[in-house]
């Protein structure tokens, strides 16, 4: 499959009378966005705001971050099976409003986490301090059940992202990159001496408000399967996960999966990017066994010479990670796993809930329990009301000067397990 990605660099987002992209600025007609979102009767109200890099702004509680993209010159659509029609993506041409993002914000459950600081010490821990963010703050209809609210909010985020992404359809990109994958035989013929490298992505599927969707399918109901990496760039995988801020993969993370990017960077030079497997992290132990068996089996069928395995979340997904690692190693395929750690605030506790001797090559996104003080910001988008009950927060964590003390796990993307950031630990 072959995908051309045209990147349109966005340096600023502004409200305006008409929505358009011009000279690197994304102009947004707020009323049009409001109307679009309020089509869903489950949403009572929506506020819009803009957060730019370097501003004294804190956004919380963040649910998802989405990058505006569109398909160009074909009848394919971004977010297939979710918002767009079910048709295989990953071919053709895609335009990206790089440097912009849609941030959805709303307390779906009372203890929800997810902070983005646009400046100050917290900004270094989240990639979304570097994007120009259109923030959507939702108010649900009264008594809307959590799962309905989550769904409404999720879909609204995609709708707005697609609406904005479409503005880039006719714009000439600042740069265009091409990503091409080949079938087994052709790849072998083209690069007979390069190792066949695979990528195993574990998707969060821990139940209500912890789900991941692939072409609209709730991944917890799927067997381990294969996907082409270019499909992922077109929004084939989206996040329905609102908990665990530091190591959840937002939709933006999926669209810009760094393992896919870095494997493509060496594709045809040092390795063949030979395929991608997606598997789940279910709560039922039988599912864990089955899914990891299938991971190993597919690695063997694909005759990978090595795989990178990435995790999402923590706790019992560590068990899935170890099962995947152990079983893939057992079929003779070397692995490197990417995870993060919960080593306690002082870093001395056991980092992972499960370990296996087979996991001898580990990349870590750092210790999510490490504490950070986030100084007061001039402006808060959303609400900090729940900041002491979020997973990375603790009681009495708001200091007299208005700064808050949280564990890194409260910050979106701080210890991302796709290896999105440079954050790590030893």
């Amino acid at each position, binding site marked *: 499959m072959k995908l051309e990605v045209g990147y349109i660099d966005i340096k600023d987002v502004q409200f305006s009378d008409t929505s358009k992209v011009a000279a690197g600025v994304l102009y947004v007609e707020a009323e049009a966005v409001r109307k679009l979102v309020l089509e869903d009767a489950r949403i009572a109200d929506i506020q819009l705001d803009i957060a730019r890099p370097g501003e004294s702004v804190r956004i919380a509680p963040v649910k998802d971050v989405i990058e505006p993209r569109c398909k160009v010159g074909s009848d394919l659509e971004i977010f297939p099976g979710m918002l767009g029609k079910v048709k295989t993506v990953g071919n053709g041409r895609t335009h990206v409003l790089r440097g912009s993002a849609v941030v959805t914000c709303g307390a779906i459950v009372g203890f929800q986490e997810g902070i983005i600081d646009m400046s100050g010490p917290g900004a270094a821990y989240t990639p979304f301090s570097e994007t120009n963010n259109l923030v959507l703050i939702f108010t649900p209809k009264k008594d809307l*059940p959590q799962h309905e609210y989550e769904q409404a909010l999720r879909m609204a985020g995609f709708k707005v992202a697609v609406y904005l992404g479409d503005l880039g359809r006719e714009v000439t990109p600042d740069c265009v990159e091409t990503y091409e994958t080949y079938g087994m035989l052709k790849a072998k013929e083209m690069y007979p001496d390069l190792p066949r490298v695979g990528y195993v992505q574990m998707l969060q599927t821990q139940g209500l408000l912890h789900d991941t969707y692939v072409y609209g399918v709730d991944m917890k109901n799927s067997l381990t399967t294969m996907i082409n990496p270019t499909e992922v760039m077109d929004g084939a995988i989206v996040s329905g996960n609102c908990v*665990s801020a530091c190591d959840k993969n937002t939709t933006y993370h999926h669209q810009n999966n760094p393992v896919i990017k870095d494997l493509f960077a060496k594709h045809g030079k040092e390795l063949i990017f030979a395929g991608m497997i997606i598997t789940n992290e279910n709560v039922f132990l039988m599912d864990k066994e089955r899914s990891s068996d299938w991971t190993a089996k597919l690695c063997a069928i694909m005759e990978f010479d090595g795989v990178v395995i990435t995790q999402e979340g923590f706790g019992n997904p560590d068990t899935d990670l170890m099962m995947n690692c152990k079983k893939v190693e057992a079929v003779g395929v070397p692995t490197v796993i990417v995870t993060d750690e919960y080593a306690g605030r002082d870093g001395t506790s056991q980092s992972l809930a*499960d370990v296996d001797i087979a996991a001898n090559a580990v990349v870590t996104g750092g210790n999510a329990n490490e504490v950070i003080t986030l100084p007061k910001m001039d402006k808060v988008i959303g609400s900090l009301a729940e900041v002491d009950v979020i997973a990375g927060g603790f009681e009495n964590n708001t200091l007299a000067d208005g700064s808050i003390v949280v564990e890194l796990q409260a910050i979106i993307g701080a210890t991302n397990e796709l290896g999105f950031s440079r954050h790590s630990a030893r």
Partner: protein
Amino acid sequence: MNILVTNNPLCKGRLGNLYDVRFSEVSALEILKCARGFVHLGHSLITHPTAGGLPPGHSPYKSIVITAEATTPNLAFINAIEHTIAQYEKSTRPEPKEHLEDFAALDFALVCK
């Protein structure tokens, strides 16, 4: 029929057709210990004791599905339950008093299918 040990009031009246529900009004830690008793006697865990994406001590509710039959105790299950209990015992976080319905709904969703 599998056994459900739970302290989640939502599970109490509603899952009787799916499980042999053993409800008791105790802490999440006590539910884990109860499950451990079963595992030590050779029952198998059906759901992972840390199911759900919340760190230990964050949710007051815990529901764990266990087989009705007992065989030889399984190492993986013992490790899972012991490790979880150790983490819960280490957690110094006071049990949350707010948002109980949200916690209950999340916990319920893990075992309701």
